[in-house]
């Protein structure tokens, strides 16, 4: 690198042109020693993840309280700030300044470690979420593998919390969450394999670009709606939300694994749960609903030359990527919040499952169904590839096959298992 040679005094016109400064900055960026960009990328990435995660959680807590209050004929938080906007921040301050209570019978080290272990993988997941084609922490070729690797770590935090609290409710909650998270990991992965099968890549960006043709190319709608449903149900269970919130079932286990937690440690669990819901909703969008592309294919900015028109109007060629990325972030966030909203509606509507029902639902219904789904997708991929060229006609072949085999096979299998299970239960009651 020749750092000293290219320095010239800029003219006044150049100084007034923002694009000049942008070009200069990019030039400078490439001239820096290698370690600096890597370090800075790390810092920016960390900052992005932290801010995005926190901000999303703060918004979602307020949103959830508001949505539930509309559900239940209430006003919801409306005291702090306009329309209760700053309620979550006030709550956060309260939790930060609250006394951190630890009973003498706890395992203090693990008790403190548990929230961190729960939080870290959830926040790390933000790194692989593609918010736009440029705003993506790391575009890994096997981003999906990272997703599953990370999301299975957080359960250790819950089990540790349950164990270290030395409280029976916490222990039961921790054990329930372990069983639940491990079980629901299976349909979660099985349902995604279908997408990978058709895309041929585990990179989320590639998956999104494969669906960039608009609604008819979204996997969740036209190709593998069943996979989407399986993934969504399993992801709701992964983040322990109603109706799968058994680990913290407040009417049974007081508060489950976080019964003994107070102050910021409790807030950490709280934060991580909401961050987890956000990440999994975002991934649902990325995998099945075209990610950052608009429902009409690509982006308006590119398709209809809107970006070019704006660039010409303001005479700033450098803002074109900003415009395109901005629109993509808009689509990504809007779709994500739709799924978050659905999760909130579910919370307002459904009662909680029982542990045995939860396990039964996973092992006797979801897993067989996702296996059959996977088989059907493989079949469709192998034998009707020509129909699937545009991802449209083939999907109907798939749907018809899935309907025939799926309903018969799954129904019969579930019926058989259920009968066995009921006989066992009956035997236990009569014993």
């Amino acid at each position, binding site marked *: 690198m020749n750092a000293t040679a290219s320095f010239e005094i800029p003219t006044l016109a150049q100084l007034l042109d923002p694009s000049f400064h942008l070009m200069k900055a990019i030039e400078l960026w490439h001239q820096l020693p290698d370690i600096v960009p890597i370090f800075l990328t790390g810092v920016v990435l960390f900052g992005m993840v932290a801010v995005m995660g926190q901000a999303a959680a703060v918004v979602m807590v307020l949103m959830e309280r508001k949505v539930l209050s509309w*559900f239940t*004929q209430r006003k919801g938080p409306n005291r702090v700030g306009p329309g209760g906007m700053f309620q979550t921040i006030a709550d956060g301050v309260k939790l930060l300044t609250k006394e951190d209570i630890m009973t003498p019978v706890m395992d203090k080290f693990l008790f403190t470690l548990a929230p961190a272990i729960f939080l870290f993988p959830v926040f790390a997941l933000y790194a692989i979420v593609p918010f736009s084609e440029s705003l993506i922490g790391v575009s890994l070729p096997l981003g999906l593998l990272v997703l599953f690797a990370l999301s299975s770590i957080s359960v250790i935090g819950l089990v540790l919390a349950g164990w270290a609290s030395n409280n029976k409710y916490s222990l039961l909650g921790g054990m329930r969450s372990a069983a639940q998270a491990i079980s629901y990991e299976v349909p979660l992965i099985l349902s995604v394999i279908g997408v990978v099968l058709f895309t041929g890549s585990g990179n989320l960006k590639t998956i999104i670009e494969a669906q960039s043709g608009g609604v008819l190319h979204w996997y969740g709608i036209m190709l593998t709606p069943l996979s989407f449903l399986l993934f969504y149900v399993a992801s709701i269970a992964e983040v322990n939300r109603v109706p799968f919130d*058994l680990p913290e079932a407040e009417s*049974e286990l007081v508060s489950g694994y976080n019964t003994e937690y107070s102050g910021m440690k409790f807030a950490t669990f709280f934060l991580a749960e909401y961050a987890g819901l956000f990440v999994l909703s975002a991934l649902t969008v990325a995998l099945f609903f075209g990610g950052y592309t608009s429902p009409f294919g690509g982006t308006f900015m590119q398709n209809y030359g809107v970006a070019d028109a704006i660039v010409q109007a303001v005479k700033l060629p450098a803002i074109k990527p900003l415009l395109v990325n901005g629109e993509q972030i808009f689509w990504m966030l809007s779709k994500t919040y739709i799924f978050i909203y659905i999760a909130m509606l579910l919370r307002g509507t459904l*009662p909680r499952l029982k*542990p045995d029902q939860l396990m039964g639902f996973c092992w006797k219904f979801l897993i067989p169904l996702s296996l059959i789904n996977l088989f059907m997708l493989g079949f469709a991929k192998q034998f009707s590839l020509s129909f699937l060229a545009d991802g449209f006609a083939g999907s109907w072949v798939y749907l018809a096959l899935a309907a025939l085999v799926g309903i018969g096979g799954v129904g019969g299998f579930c019926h058989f298992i259920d009968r066995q299970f009921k006989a066992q239960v009956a035997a236990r009651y009569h014993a």
Partner: protein
Amino acid sequence: MMSVKELNPELQSNLPGVSIEAGFDTNDLVVNIGPQHPSTHGVLRLVTTLNGEVVKEMEPVIGYLHRSKEKMGESRSLFQYQPTIDRVEYLSSFYDHLVFVNCIEQIADIPVPKRVEYIRVICLELNRITSHLLWFGTFLLDLGASTPFFWCFRDREEVFTIFENLTGARMMYNYFRFGGVNNDLPAGWLEEVRAFCNHFPDRLDEYEAVATKNPILMDRTKGHGIMTKEFCLKYGVTGPALRATGEALDLRKTNPYSVYNELDFDVPTHTGCDTYARYLVRVQEMRESIKIIKQCIDKIPGGDGGALAILKKEVEAKTKEAKKNPEIVVPHWDKDWDTMGKKINLLTYKPPAGEASNFVESPRGVLGCYIITDGTPKAYRIKWRGASFSNLSALPELMKGHMYSDLMAIFGSLDVIMPEVDR
């Protein structure tokens, strides 16, 4: 990890159901559910032995809410005691008053005017609705559905406002008197009740749409917590729990008191014997209560309180004048329109010596009161029968072999409230 003994040596000998010295299976987990727990509906403690998530043994420990209501009755006059009996069962306290007041009416042979009986029945049935609404909300809350809870509270508050307009209190009414009620209906009160009766069934449909056919709810309640008729008789279980076994035992129908024999209503029963059957029976009872209230509004002698109060003033004035001038015609006043059967100075009232027991069908089952008087202003002995007391005693056997999560569904379906158990 410290043992229970190290933590509190005094406590150790007082743990019922737990014999630490003898030692128990290490696979078992003894959980003290309560006395402070979100879904024990008060301060009940359930010493539960869990094997995994299956309940092996359970022992209810009660008495945390014991306020010595029976001893209080012996130490103060009936009139002083009356305001405190609202707290025997605070979710449907009109029923407490009814049994208490009826006992004294029986001992002293005080007549009760028809209008009073109808007012009482309206209050009782509205109170049954509020009680069942609270049960509906908390039952579903225990199952994890949070929304119906708030919906039920909205309607419950509406009824409480109606009660407030009548009695001045939202929960602790102290409205019934020996042989009457404290005051007549305020003007327009019956219309308020009628308006509520008109829109409530629609609301109930809405609540049922959320819950009744919900597959998760049905899965959690159907076939769980089966109580047969023999089981109910063994433990003295009454109320909706007994009616869910197909036994149409409702004291309003079988042994009519007040004016229930003049009213047309059905006793909802179900033959499911399980948690879901108890749920359905209670929901249906709310509809029957609405039916009863509507009939009472139509049948109540004297009608709305406003016009009657004006008439009463006129009658009183004219009666005075008629004593001086016999030509003045006093307007017709029916005995049935009174709000007091017999004038009693409550401050100095001494019921004759005697004893009476009275049982009514409260929202939770048979609520009873047994009073012995000895001619003094105080009662010699007052004994309360809370339906929850007997219903709760069935829980340990009912829970054996069920999942820990079923506890909340089954316990919730018994509709036990602790003030009635401990009194």
